[in-house]
């Protein structure tokens, strides 16, 4: 394990309708088990994750809206300062795809940055009853200049790639993160062995 500087700290949001699997995406990052019945006790507010992309180690603060989307409009503070947004729909539920415009509007309204990197994730591709084709997802993503990936939190397909691709794009957009550089000294890198393994999931696409 080598010591390595942390390039930057990024705020990533996961947004989308209830039940599209946002929390599962947040959860499915590096492990093997999948808890179908996610415990709904206190619930997770946010996570700090360390990822290494293209040799750059980056700390992510990842927030999902779980539960809050019931109130329709999230507090502006949720959006403040975010460099990346993962917009999730459920490929088996057309209405979650139809609501994407509303989520983009809300993002436009509250985002404090004009160059936020957006990624569209069509989730639950392991299911049989697909209502939103990959082509539809891709078209929507292109129209709104978003990255696009189809994923299954259950099989882990695409999930790691989604985060890595988003981080890669943010890091390649220096204006987005340079100002936020935190003078923190050095940190050690986490399990790079895992990071390597997951690259293979990109081939699903």
């Amino acid at each position, binding site marked *: *394990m080598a010591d390595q500087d*942390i390039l930057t*700290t990024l705020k990533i949001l996961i947004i989308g309708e209830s039940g599209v699997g946002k929390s599962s995406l947040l*959860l499915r*990052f*590096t*492990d*093997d*088990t999948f*808890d179908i019945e996610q*415990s709904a006790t*206190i*619930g*997770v*507010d*946010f*996570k*700090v*994750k*360390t990822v290494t992309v293209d040799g750059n180690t980056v*700390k992510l*603060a990842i927030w999902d809206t779980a539960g809050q989307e019931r109130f329709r409009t999230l507090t502006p503070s949720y959006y403040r300062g975010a460099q990346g947004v993962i917009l999730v729909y459920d490929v088996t539920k057309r209405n979650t795809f139809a609501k994407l415009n509303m989520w983009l509007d809300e993002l436009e309204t509250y985002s404090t940055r004009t160059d936020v990197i957006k990624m569209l994730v069509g989730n639950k591709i392991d299911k049989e009853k697909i209502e939103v084709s990959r082509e539809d997802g891709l078209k929507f993503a292109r129209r709104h200049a978003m990255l696009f990936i189809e994923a299954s939190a259950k099989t882990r397909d695409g999930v790691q790639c989604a985060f890595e691709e988003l981080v890669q794009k943010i890091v390649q957009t220096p204006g987005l993160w340079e100002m936020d550089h*935190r003078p*923190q000294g050095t*940190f*050690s*890198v*986490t*399990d790079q062995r895992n990071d390597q393994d997951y690259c293979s999931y990109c081939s699903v696409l």
Partner: protein
Amino acid sequence: MLDTSSVVSEGQNKCAVKCPHCDSQILSVKSAALLSEAHPLPNPTQPKEQHSPITEDLAEWWVVEDMFTFDNIGFSHTVGTTKYLVCADCERGPLGWHDNTSKKSYVALARVKHV
């Protein structure tokens, strides 16, 4: 009381701190300071229909000043003035707690693995 000698070096964590269930790395070597002070933490498993959680007093903690010092960690929603720390990958816990006022986090030595 744990025997901390094997995991402490100059008051800091000598080993990486990992989730005991899924091995997710929580803290890198020498990123947290040892604190010996009794503090209650809810038990990982609670009886059904338990209204106020059963806690145990734990005496040894890794103090983390800045939440971005963590390699991987999850923060629960706020309960009172604290958040509970859970594994970022398997979400098991609580592995410790976070004080919303001081912004410091406390990882229970008894609830994690030292590798």
